[in-house]
């Protein structure tokens, strides 16, 4: 009897000891071990937002993808056959795959990454069926893991703006490498969620413990870009640049009333769906990142400022000599002439540097700079893309009288193409500058900046009358007899525009004899809807803004007017005399 009690006591104290061990000493790790058993945690992936054009067409979208992983310990035996099949079905390199399927001492090798899910599943299912082991069990050498795939269905269309995603990092997060993908990375990414639940035999146990942190999907980014117009613009730009044997080119199509960019093309550019074949230097929009001297297109700003300041009017008479001898070197025009008797409209229509300098002499010091700054030159447009340049408008002591003279006709200052398009658009929009926008609505960049068409600020730069008078003068530029750019005309429509042929600063930092030719204009002139700006850098010698950029402008404007169903206004073009 007593021995019995003793035995019971011994057994109970063993139990008590174990209890103390479990409960008092490190209970947490045991609880964790228990929890891990039969528990599964899955990441609920957040879907990256799409980048859409203004009509909702996808420019960049994410599809469910898989990485295919091989276990060389298993695949070694059937490597050649398997590699053949994978090479054929997935388009992977046969020899590389073969090598990977045979790696010694490894149990994890990538076979392919970012394969569309349905394709990957089909291939893996077929492999499992085909390479069954001796007992007839499905092949265990291949498995798949989630590996989302970003696709750019339009290849090079808007690639300069979109940027692209590189191979995801090891933790599965996206790696944005350029463009909007980078500047709006956190806006687009969203936040992964997580679900933890109890499982039995691969199925969730009903009524079991379950905690879910839902994923927050990335938000879509809707652009103001019109995909089809962007395509056409890129193609026309390419044609223009290659025909003129130019180095590069930019084309901007802007809605005059809202400042929204309908197309922003750069040439050369790259293919966002296959970026690594292209030079890294192309992963940008040179319309924003590169500055250049605008040349005569800027005369529009000088002259409209003069008109606004009440210092000039379109019929104002000037005697324009062939050369103007100022402090350092003579200023001349692109064509040789004796003293001409030009009106202000004639100065603009014939793009006379000398005439513009004479007219600009009426400015008080600092006045032109104030106007140019108000037109938006020298400040970033902040439309949401990184790497934008400010452009340079000399100030203070740097604005000497020679510099001032040259600035009046568009040299000695530098701009980016979007700035310049927005500046010319100010005249189209009745003297009110509207900040250009690339993003529709509002969105926040990774730097915390709010951008978008909702934010587009408007500022009055010149009076509506001054804008109208400038427009009338700009119409003379396209006059078949008197103007320099009849090729830019759009049959049936009133068009106002201005050519530019600027000396270009080469790679060594000096004027190297190459030029930047451009054309900026808007139509219909008397009720502007679109402002288009075409720039070609370093075209074949002898090319001018009217002969190279003008026809491109005409095609783009025709297409845009047709696409948006803008009827001609029916008015007759202005006939202000150019000479007196």
């Amino acid at each position, binding site marked *: 009897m007593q021995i019995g009690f003793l035995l019971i006591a011994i057994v109970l104290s063993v139990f008590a000891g174990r209890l103390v061990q479990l409960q008092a000493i490190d209970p947490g790790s045991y609880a964790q071990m228990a929890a891990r058993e039969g528990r599964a945690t899955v990441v609920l992936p957040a879907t990256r937002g799409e980048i859409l054009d203004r009509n909702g067409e996808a420019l960049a979208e994410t599809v469910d993808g898989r990485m295919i992983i091989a276990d060389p310990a298993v695949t070694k035996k059937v490597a050649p056959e398997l590699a053949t099949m994978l090479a054929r079905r997935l388009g992977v390199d046969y020899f590389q795959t073969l090598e990977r399927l045979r790696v010694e001492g490894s149990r994890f090798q990538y076979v392919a990454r970012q394969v569309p899910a349905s394709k990957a599943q089909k291939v893996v299912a077929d492999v499992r069926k085909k390479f069954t082991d001796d007992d007839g069990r499905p092949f265990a050498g291949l498995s798949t893991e989630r590996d989302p795939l970003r696709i750019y269905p*339009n290849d090079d269309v808007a690639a300069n703006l979109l940027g692209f995603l590189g191979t995801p990092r090891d933790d599965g997060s996206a790696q944005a490498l350029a463009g909007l993908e980078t500047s709006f990375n956190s806006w687009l990414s969203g936040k992964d969620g997580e679900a933890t639940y109890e499982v039995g035999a691969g199925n969730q146990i009903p009524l079991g413990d379950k905690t879910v942190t839902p994923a927050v999907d990335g938000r879509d980014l809707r652009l103001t870009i019109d995909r089809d117009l962007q395509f056409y613009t890129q193609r026309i730009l390419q044609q223009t640049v290659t025909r003129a044997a130019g180095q590069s080119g930019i084309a901007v199509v802007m809605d005059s009333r809202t400042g929204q960019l309908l197309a922003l093309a750069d040439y050369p550019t790259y293919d966002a769906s296959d970026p690594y074949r292209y030079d890294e230097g192309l992963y940008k929009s040179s319309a924003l990142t590169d500055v250049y001297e605008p040349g005569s297109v800027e005369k529009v700003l000088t002259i409209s400022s003069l008109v606004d300041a009440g210092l000039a009017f379109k019929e104002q008479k000037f005697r324009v000599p062939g050369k103007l001898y100022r402090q350092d070197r003579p200023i001349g025009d692109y064509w040789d002439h004796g003293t001409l008797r030009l009106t202000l409209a004639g100065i603009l229509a014939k793009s006379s540097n000398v005439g513009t300098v004479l007219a600009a002499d009426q400015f008080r010091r600092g006045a032109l700079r104030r106007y140019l700054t108000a037109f938006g030159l020298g400040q970033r447009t902040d439309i949401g893309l990184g790497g934008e340049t400010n452009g340079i408008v000399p100030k203070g002591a740097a604005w000497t009288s020679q510099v001032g003279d040259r600035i009046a006709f568009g040299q000695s200052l530098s701009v980016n193409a979007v700035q310049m398009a927005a500046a010319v658009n100010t005249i189209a929009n009745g003297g009110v500058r509207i900040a250009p926008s690339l993003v529709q609505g509002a969105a926040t960049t990774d730097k915390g900046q709010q951008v978008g068409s909702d934010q587009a600020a408007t500022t009055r730069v010149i009076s509506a009358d001054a804008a109208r008078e400038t427009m009338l003068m700009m119409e003379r530029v396209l006059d078949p007899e008197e103007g320099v750019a009849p090729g830019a005309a759009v049959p049936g429509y009133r068009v106002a525009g201005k050519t530019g042929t600027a000396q270009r600063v080469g790679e060594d930092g000096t004027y190297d004899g190459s030029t930047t030719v451009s054309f900026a204009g808007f139509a219909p002139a008397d009720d502007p809807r679109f402002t288009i700006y075409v720039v070609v850098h370093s075209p074949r010698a002898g090319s001018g803004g009217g002969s190279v950029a003008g026809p491109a402008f005409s095609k783009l404007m025709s297409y845009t007017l047709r696409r948006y169903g803008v009827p001609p206004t029916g008015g007759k073009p202005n006939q202000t005399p150019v000479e007196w």
Partner: protein
Amino acid sequence: MSSTAAQVRRLQSVAPRVAQAALERARLTVVPRPRRTRAPRVPFVAFVSVILLAGVVGLLLFNTSMQQASFRATALQGQATDLGAQQEALEMDIQSLREPQRLARLAQEMGMVIPSTPAGILDLTTGRITGDPVPASGDDALPLHMPGPKKPAQLRRPADVKVAAGSRTDRTDRTVRTDRTPQRTERTPKRNGDGAPTGDR
């Protein structure tokens, strides 16, 4: 004082009577046991057992069906994922079919071009055509492809090179199409160095 004494006396005379009554009341009798109505035991037991059994079976069935539903949920989830992937694949196909590049190519193969002049506009209310429409011409054809990427210099393929008879091979004058490896490139004559076509699109 005298009144108090009188009261006590009256109480004394009353007390035995009260006690008597209490006594009488306290004389308890056994409550007559009512005749037990014997409820029939069997139905009750049967009833409870049925409830119990039904509960257990119900619970079992419920659990089983929950499990079943869970299996089904997992299977359906898998199916949904598959179908989602399939839908995405189909959407991708549509995307690539709708790509402007492709449409432009197909249209141009059929002899269509995008006109570079504005269209005439027909006003439906007045029936009047405004604008200055001009028929499109073949000159409006667009370049459909970007020029291919530039290859690094060492990967450029030189043009077909004529190798003089007997210079390296014993075969007579023939055209050697050098491949893209740098070693082979070095063998080609110098004049084919930089200015040679790249073989790009």
